[in-house]
């Protein structure tokens, strides 16, 4: 049938924009329902941008959840973010930025017909992506090892090096006072203790559970009884204005300590529901990680086709699309990193 259309479109001499000429655009890259390569490219690009919009909204839900929980319970985020390793997060940010640069350059190289350069840049991009995942693996296994996990799996405990990660038991004596208003002095004290504790103080995991579990159960009961945190009359709700100065460690001291101790150094009164932070952390970075894996597959595919010489300066749509996708993966991380790692 389609052949016949072609024949009679030419034969009858109809010269309409939307005829069925298969004649023009002899390019093998042109699909049958497009008129020109330009139209096809424009369509592909618009489609890709719409897809990226869906990605932003997909993550938008998570950013929204993040805002709600952080807005309602800033103390959880300030406390728990210290368990994230800023150095690894920072390195990963640099790695992703570099990969964004190399893939953008590889698009340019395709446009200019520089095939071996393009292939080389794609390989570097892939290496960066694997590097990112490798670092992520290191970070995840650290959390796993120390029981810093979401929801009911949250069971922080003493690490294999004898470090104490949550100072719950140590601070247990003045727990009652601290629960309502964690004073700056207290934080300072806890931090200082912690610095000493590293070598001298070792609390068993069993002790630690004893101090945290009732807190969780307690909060659960209150959360069921009232709409959690949305209720301004909730006696347990904490006034955010009081939190910021108290929860932020005193300048100088804490920073120094953290430098000493790496990610596990700072000892503070552990607030309730710390597991919420790790739920947000793992879901956000996990979903981002899934996108990185998808990106690796996509980059790998275009790498194979590039080596076969499929992409030409006249047509390189897949390279462009994968690069756009990779940029959005990068961009999401650019937001995740400060929101999760760099909280004050």
């Amino acid at each position, binding site marked *: *049938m*389609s052949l*016949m*259309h072609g*024949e*009679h479109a030419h*034969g*009858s*001499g*109809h010269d*309409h*924009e*939307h*005829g*069925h000429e298969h004649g023009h655009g002899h390019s093998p890259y042109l699909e*049958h*329902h*497009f008129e020109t390569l330009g*139209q096809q490219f*424009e*369509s592909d690009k*618009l*489609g890709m941008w*719409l*897809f990226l*919009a*869906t*990605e932003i*909204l*997909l993550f*938008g*839900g*998570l950013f*929204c*959840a993040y805002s*709600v*929980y952080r807005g309602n319970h800033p103390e959880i985020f300030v406390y728990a973010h210290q368990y994230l390793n800023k150095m690894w997060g920072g390195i990963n940010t640099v790695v992703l930025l570099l990969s964004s640069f190399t893939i953008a350059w590889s698009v340019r190289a395709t446009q200019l017909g520089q095939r071996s350069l393009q292939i080389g840049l794609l390989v570097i991009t892939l290496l960066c992506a694997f590097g990112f995942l490798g670092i992520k693996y290191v970070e995840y296994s650290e959390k796993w090892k120390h029981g810093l996990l*979401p*929801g*009911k*799996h949250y069971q922080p405990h003493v690490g294999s090096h004898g470090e104490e990660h949550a100072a719950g038991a140590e601070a247990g004596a003045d727990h009652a006072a601290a629960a309502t208003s964690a004073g700056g002095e207290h934080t300072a004290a806890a931090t200082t203790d912690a610095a000493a504790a590293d070598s001298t103080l070792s609390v068993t995991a069993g002790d630690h559970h004893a101090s945290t579990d009732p807190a*969780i159960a307690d*909060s*659960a009961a209150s*959360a*069921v009884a009232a*709409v*959690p*945190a*949305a*209720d301004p009359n909730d006696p347990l709700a904490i006034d955010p204005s009081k939190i910021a100065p108290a929860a932020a460690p005193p300048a100088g001291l804490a920073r120094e300590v953290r430098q000493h101790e790496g990610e596990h150094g700072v000892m503070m009164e552990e607030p*309730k*529901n710390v*597991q*919420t932070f790790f*739920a*947000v952390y*793992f*879901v956000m970075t996990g*979903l981002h990680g899934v996108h990185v894996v998808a990106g690796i597959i996509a980059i790998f595919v275009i790498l194979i086709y590039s080596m076969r010489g499929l992409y030409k300066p006249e047509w390189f749509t897949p390279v462009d699309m994968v690069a756009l996708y990779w940029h959005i993966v990068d961009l999401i991380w650019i937001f995740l990193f400060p929101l999760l790692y760099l909280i004050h």
Partner: protein
Amino acid sequence: MASTGMRVGSGATDAPVGYAENNFLNHTKGFASWIWTLDHKRIGVMYMWSIILFFFAGGLFATMLRTELWTPKDDIVGPDLYNQLFTYHGAVMVFLVILPGIPAALANFVLPIMLGAKDVAFPKLNLASYWLFVVGALLALSSLVQGGLDTGWTFYTPYSTSTNTAVVPVVTAAFILGFANIFTGLNFIVTIHKLRPPGMGWFNMPLFLWGIYATGIIQVLATPVLGITLLLLIIERVFHVGIFDPALGGDPVLFQHFFWFYSHPAVYIMILPAMAVISEMVPTFSRKPIFGYRFIAYSSIAIALFGFLVWGHHMFVAGQSALMNMIMSALTYSVSIPSAVKVFNWLATMWKGSIQYRTPMIWVLGFIWIFAIGGLTGLFLGSLGTDVHLHETYFVVAHFHYTMMGSTFLAFFGGVFYWWPKMFGRMYDEKWGTIGALIVNIGFNATFIPQFIMGSHGSPRRYAHYLPEYQPFHQASTVGTYIMLVGFIICGWVLISSLYRGRKAPANPWGASTLEWQCTSPPPYNNFDEPPIVPEDEPYHYDHLEWDPELGGYIDKRREGSPAPGAAVEAAH
């Protein structure tokens, strides 16, 4: 030339001019040629049959529910099974019928042809959408043998994270179906942007395309939020991360916010395409240009945008702050403005028109009546004071059935009857088609008007048992359901029998002026044997179309004596 010759030479003497013996339906043959097709028309047809099938499944669940409610006590099922029935009824109707209904089935078929294009922008994505739909549907229905589901179609936490029924398969299915929806919407947006023929500006487009475009915006922007919500629900259930679980510090109301941030716009995914179909049929059967083209076009976009800002009206009694309630209530009222604009424009189009009561027009009239009731009763629910009284009653059930089921499905069926001759090249029995449409309309109103009344009397929804004082209303409602069932069976029979006994359709049986009526019935594989004439104005002018009683359809006088597509090619030789 060749194809025209084959048409004449095939000996089909009873076929009117404009009917194509060789068309997209028999262009290639065999099962594989259908399931791997990239042709938007075939994908649309496959979607349509699947959706009609699921509609009857969902209708079966509804009939069982209504039968159970004949008396206040257990009749045919117990409370647990009742909970599962209303869950499956809602989930099947929403996710498998109404959401994909008009866009994926009707628009898929007709949208590229309306643009004079050969296909949608991404044919493979289109096929992927259909197969995701099938996979999602099968996964959802497989939960029936995995313990069923009793959460209601809204999957509210914390019940959905604690019930023992098969939440994960159904939620995963809804997630997959969301992708099918996104692919459809994305495809249509790009097609409308990039595949319009030269000469067709935005305001020369059929209003159907405006409606589908607005729907596409919602599908693309709202569905991902449902996606992440359902994903979080799955993660919550499988890993107990505590995002929505209050026992672990999570917030179940956050689930409601997320869910309705999608699901309120989703009701516009349901109703905007319905309005789009109606906007095509009203001028065609009134033989009069549409009144207020730009108002209808812009109101579609306005509904799409406003629709994102009103989700909180589902949580007036869920602990939302008073300020938030007031804002959401006010915004909800504002959505009724563009909706009313459309209704007034349709009525103004019909005013002093020469209305033809063909079968599709019966559905249109039913739609306008039902949509008006559905829309106006929505105001009672959008108003804070009355909503406190009416929420979780049968009033809500009746309201959303008037808007979601009544309006959308009437428009869907109207559209099926409208484009049926184009899809399959057969005319159906007008008399029985009209009777079927009327019976459905009577049954629908008989089913749901009693629910408005008992809802306003305080009868709560979602219970298998009820107080005896509500029995007359329930019985009237159940009788209405059976009337509706009879009506739909008649409609189905009218359509199916037309495939075997129906008169072959000419190119333009209704005298409509959009481009899809310029190609043959059914369309050829490439949609147009010869280029369509693109209007330089709004498409709803009918002066060039003339009824030909011998043909049983309309001829296009612009084609200078050639009565229908195909013939012009002959003349050129």
